Structure formats: structure tokens, C-alpha cells
């Protein structure tokens, strides 16, 4: 009884191993390469978000200064007009 049982187990292992051994997987180094690439993509996305934030802040600052420049020019004109009119 023992001999046939051992034969069965050995035979199963050989047959099963041959099925599994058909497909290959990336090595550890290759997986590291993929993970590093993904990390760089994440980092680039964060960097882009930060740049977009800074761009928005700069656009607002430029608009504010433009408004102040316009007001400054108006103030100069208005003051000079008042001086001329003698008020």
C-alpha cells in the first residue's frame, strides 16, 4: 500500500511542476525598476501641482499690482487737476 501511495505523490508533483513552470515572472530587479518609475511619476505629479499653485498665486499678484498701478496713475491725475482748478 505504501509503495503505490508514494508513486502517486511523486507522479503528481512531477506533473504539477511541469504545468507551473510554463509561465515566467519578472525578476526582483525588474520589479524595482517598475516601482521606481511609478514613484517618479507620483513625484512629478506633486511637482506639477505645486507649480500650478505658484502660477495661480503669481497671476493674482500681478493682477493686484496692475489694479494698484491704475489707481496710482488716477490719483496723480486727480491731484494735479485739483491743484490746477485751485481747490
Amino acid at each position, binding site marked *: 500500500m505504501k509503495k503505490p501511495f508514494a508513486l502517486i505523490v511523486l507522479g*503528481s508533483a512531477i506533473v504539477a511542476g511541469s504545468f507551473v513552470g510554463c*509561465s515566467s515572472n*519578472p525578476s526582483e530587479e525588474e520589479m524595482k525598476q517598475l516601482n521606481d518609475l511609478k514613484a517618479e*511619476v507620483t513625484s512629478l505629479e506633486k511637482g506639477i501641482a505645486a*507649480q500650478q499653485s505658484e502660477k495661480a498665486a503669481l497671476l493674482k499678484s500681478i493682477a493686484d*499690482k496692475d489694479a494698484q498701478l491704475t489707481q496710482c496713475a488716477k490719483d496723480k491725475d486727480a*491731484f494735479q487737476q485739483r491743484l490746477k482748478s485751485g*481747490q
Partner: protein
Amino acid sequence: MKYIIRLTIIAALVSAFVINSFAQEKMTKEDWQNQIKDVTAKQIDLKNQFTGLQKEVSDLQKQDADKSVALKQCQDALTALLGPLEAPFVAMLDAIDARLNELTPLSNQDLWARRAEIDSVQNWIDIAQKNPVSAIQKYQDRLKDQQTRLDALKKTLASINANGETMPTYTVGTWARDRDCLWNIAKKPKIYDNPFLWPKIWQGNRDQIKNPDVIQKGQKLKIPPKAALTKEENSALRRYWSKKNAQATAKP
């Protein structure tokens, strides 16, 4: 023997199935290659975006710096233009603010006692408005705010009597139902019980009553405290009758 072979094949198939189902959770080489391709393409695209954005930000930083310089130049030029006129003007605005800060929290009684200062503050604001420096927008805004605060104090003052109490009011009804005119209102026992004091109501509500012969339903008239007609009220009464007589004489 046949039995053993059949059993071996079945056992092998079952094992292979079980082992493979575990093996499929690990990435295949083909999957890895596809992912490398996709992620690399994404990386290149993002790098281009990032580079582009960096340049834009750099250009905007330069623009912002240039605007700061231009703004400072304009503000310096304006300061030079205003010259020695600005400092005393600002001191005047500060004095107006200080006085308003004193008057605003006063009780009605104290405000009544200091009512002459309200006219002084109005005088200061009028003088400041005539100053050329007031043409500058920020000073215009400041003067406007001061006038608003002063108007609020004037409104409070107009609604209180010498004791600092809020004056009672009377809401005008209709001629048809209530026979409301200034004479009849002053005649009411709850008001003055004396119709001859009607000019007091007229003068106390000059902002609402242009012609004392014409009052409107719904008008809320302040009722000044009962007292003899003042000099101003008597003058107004004389002018009223004078005008009435002139109109009566002028009619054909």
C-alpha cells in the same frame, strides 16, 4: 497498476490547478512589460508638462518683480507730488477720527451736552474735502467713512431731547378719518394739548416737512418736548404767515 496511474493523473491535475491559482497572483513578464511601457509614457508626458510650467512660472516671477518696481516708482512719484501737503492733511483726518471715536460711544445725554462738537467735526470734514490731497482715492474713502459716522451721530441727536431721551413720535393718519394736520396734532391731549405749539412739530421735523400745510399719511413725526415756542420757531411762524399773506394778496 492502471488504478495507480489514473489516480496519479487526477492528483496531478488537482495540484496543478491549486498551484497555478496561487501563481496567477504574481505579475507575469508580459504584464510587467506593458506596465513599464505605460508608466514610461506617462513619465515623459509629465516631465514635459513640468518643464513647461517651470518656464511659465519663471516668466511670471519676472513680470511680478517688474510690476513691483513700476508700482513703487508710481507711489514715490505721487508722494513727491503731494509734497508737504500730505502730512498735515493726514493729521487733520486723524483728528477727525479721534473726535468721532470720542463722540460715538457717548450716552444720549452726554451726546446732547456735546452737540456743538458735531457741527465742528462737520466743519473739519468740509475743509478736508476742499484740500487737493483729498482727491487721492484712499483719502476720499476715509472721508466718506468719517461722514457716514458723523451722519449716524446727527441722526441720533435729531431723535433725542435735552434729557437724552428718545423723542416720542406720532404717526400721521388721514385727514378724512383722523383730521390730522399739525394744528390738530398739537391740540391732542397726549401731544401738547395746545394747537398753537404746532410750529414746534414743524421745526422738529424739517427733514420731513417742507410745507407745514402738507403732511402725509404714515409720516412718523418726532414730538419735541412741550415748551414755549423758541426764538427760531417763532421766526419760522412769522415767515410762514408772511408768505401766506403775500400769497393771499397776490391772488386776483
